[in-house]
């Protein structure tokens, strides 16, 4: 196998996408949000997320949305499009430009019995709210001796590949997965976007919900992949295989599926696991896969150094040492600030970098 030949992406357009902030292209003639009765019709991930919020708000009047430009504009990615018109300005709140305020106010609303869903406009702007998330939101339950619940969901569009300026392409998930008291979820498909967001909003614990922004316009059915639907803490074997396991989440799941398809053409059977939940991580699904294949590579956009891949590789090594045919590999960002748009293709893990790591897993 020629390791240095660039393989064409099996699915075109996985990197190219509108430059942010840009409206999601409206589905021609489609209703504002996919109706439940038409759940098999493919919708964009952004629409699926909007539908989840809509259905959740219709079912529970304690759910309120807060964020910058989420109301009248419908959010810079239009995820909340139409919700203020439907539910009013009291429940879909265009907040001051104040991220710490968005999360801090959500905490107070939760103390009063509400179930706030916050939108942080872009990954790189969550840091002003970092203190409220890490020192308050994640701890108030324990601080109150279990008296308080913090059913707060924080939606964060994340990841690169959209040709954006600085602070609009980052993957800060490890900070939150590292923090006790938080759940961290990230969907990779429209169906999971709907399901996981409904589960997040229904959850009595704080959930940091990372939305892979370069996948916002990828379409899929709303119908859950499983019946009954997968619990939110479970990973999914998205593509079964027998030679090597790719562990991916959010934007890199599509990359890994493309890589698996390309590898299949070369006679290699690649299993792809979509982690879905980054905190907690689904160890049984990961270890079962690794015991089958004997090889694993973790793929994420975030820098590899001290990233989620480090935790996964260490833990899999502890638990599956005698099943391993090769060290657990990691593919991800370099230890540099996320690069300017003209260089992001060099930085982001793509099909070739994934297959390169797969090849190395077979080189032992």
């Amino acid at each position, binding site marked *: 196998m020629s390791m240095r030949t660039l393989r064409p992406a099996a699915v075109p357009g996985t990197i190219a996408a509108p430059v942010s902030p840009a409206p999601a292209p409206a589905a021609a003639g489609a209703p504002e949000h996919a109706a439940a009765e038409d759940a098999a019709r493919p919708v964009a991930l952004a629409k699926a997320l909007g539908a989840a919020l809509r259905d959740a708000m*219709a079912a*529970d*009047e304690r759910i*309120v949305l807060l964020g910058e430009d989420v109301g009248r504009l419908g959010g810079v990615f239009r995820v909340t499009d139409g919700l203020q018109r*439907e*539910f*009013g*300005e*009291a*429940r879909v*709140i*265009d*907040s*001051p430009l*104040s991220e*710490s*305020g968005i*999360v*801090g*106010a*959500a*905490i*107070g*609303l*939760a*103390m*009063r*019995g*509400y179930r*706030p869903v916050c939108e942080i406009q872009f990954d790189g702007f969550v840091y*002003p709210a970092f*203190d*409220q998330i890490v*020192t*308050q939101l994640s*701890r*108030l*339950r*324990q*601080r*109150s*001796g*279990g*008296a*308080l*619940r913090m059913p707060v969901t924080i939606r964060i569009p994340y990841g690169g590949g959209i040709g954006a300026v600085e602070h609009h392409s980052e993957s800060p998930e490890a900070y939150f997965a590292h923090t*006790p*008291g938080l*759940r961290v979820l990230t969907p990779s498909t429209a169906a999971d976007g709907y399901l996981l967001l409904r589960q997040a909003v229904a*959850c*009595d*614990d704080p959930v940091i919900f990372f939305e892979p922004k370069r996948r916002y316009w990828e379409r899929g059915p709303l119908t859950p992949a499983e019946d009954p639907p997968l619990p939110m*803490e479970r990973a999914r074997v998205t593509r079964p295989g027998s030679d090597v396991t790719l562990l991916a989440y959010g934007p890199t799941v599509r990359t890994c599926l493309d890589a698996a398809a390309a590898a299949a053409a070369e006679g290699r059977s690649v299993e792809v696991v979509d982690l879905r939940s980054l905190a*907690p*991580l689904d*160890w049984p699904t990961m270890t079962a896969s690794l015991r089958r294949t004997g090889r694993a590579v973790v793929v994420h956009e975030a820098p590899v150094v001290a990233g989620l891949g480090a935790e996964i590789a260490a833990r899999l090594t502890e638990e599956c040492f005698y099943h391993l045919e090769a060290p657990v590999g990691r593919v991800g960002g370099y230890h540099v600030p996320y690069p300017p748009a003209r260089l992001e293709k060099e930085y982001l893990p793509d099909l070739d970098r994934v297959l390169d790591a797969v090849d190395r897993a077979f080189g032992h």
Partner: protein
Amino acid sequence: MVRYVASDELSDPPPAEHGVRLLNPDGTPRAHPEFDALLDVEDLKSCYGAMLRARHLDDAATTLQRQGELALWIPLRGQEAAQVGSVRAAAPADFLFPSYREHAVAWERGLPPVEVMRLLRGITHGGWDPAAYNLANYALVLATQTLHAVGYALGIQLDAERARSAGPGMAAVATVAAATEGRANIGRPTIGSDPENARGAPARGHPENIVGPPIVGRPTNTVGLPNVGRPTNLGDVLDAAVVVYLGDGAMSQGDANEAFVWAASFNAPVVFFCTNNQWAISTPAARQARVPLAERAAGFGFPGVRVDGNDVVAVHAVTTWALERARAGAGPTLIEAYTYRMGPHTTSDDPTRYQPAEALDRWRALDPIDRVARALAPVCDPGWFDERLAEARATATRLRAQTLALADPPPDAFFDEVLVTETDEGRAQRAAFREYRESFQV
């Protein structure tokens, strides 16, 4: 017991400095054009008991720390009037957000004193159920609680909207629109009979005390002790309001300033109670602001009032007014209680490195408890004061015994309540921790 001091012995800061005052340091009442005293003699006696109790509990806790029974103590000495006066203005349905020094607020709210000891002994990071006392847990990260308070206040507004509108959609709600478009109040409530009272009337009398418009009051009765009078004719449109405490140092935090923006923007029913005790550990208040802190409010678009923080009557009157305003839908207020931290920042601090001794002497003469004692001296006999002292001492003795009897938490308690639903990972770690510990037992 009480040290009786003639008024000419007291070094009294000028009005521009001390703010609204209704009880002079010598214990005589004082008229104010905007604020009536709302505490009668019985109220004042009760406040005296509460403040004396707080002082004795506070001292007992310092002693416990010195003896190694507490990890840390955060004294409140000097701030008894600011705390008791403000908490007594709050209704049971109002929700209070303390910082970490408001022990008297917590105790007045019904929290057993020993609950605060559990925190400072290192048994818990908080411990009480906020809903049981309508009192949030302490917040140690400066000013974080101000945003929680605003969010809670938004929740009170949303509750009112939900009660008003039919159906879960609340499509007709105009709450936030009204506020964001600068039209004052949520759901456009009627504010009593005279909207001028609640909002527009310009400040008169003591412009140095009151920044911004709010004047609500009746002529003050200055005969004898201050008379009880309702200061407002505001009708409640909200069934509760919020008080959040923060220090002069915390006023510089981003969260405090974001909270002011949110509160103003949504006209939230929240009272920011800034205890200006002149120090943030060693940093003087002058490092935080080049204007009186109360003046900050004007820039955000709501009234700010400086009140003599060592005058329980004035603190109570101003806080009552601010809370009634909030419940009437007239929005937030900033109260700056001008007082002095009469001890170290915490038991780990050495204020002699930065605090001028003269300042302490000057403020000792303005002691908030002595002031009430002077006011009550003409109407209470020495026996009554002796009883209060005995009561305070007994409370402190009880606290000491209760603190010493506190049991350590079970070793694996830190796994408790991290999440509502414990994860498999959490369960596995707890089991491994127990197994590890048990491996040492023969």
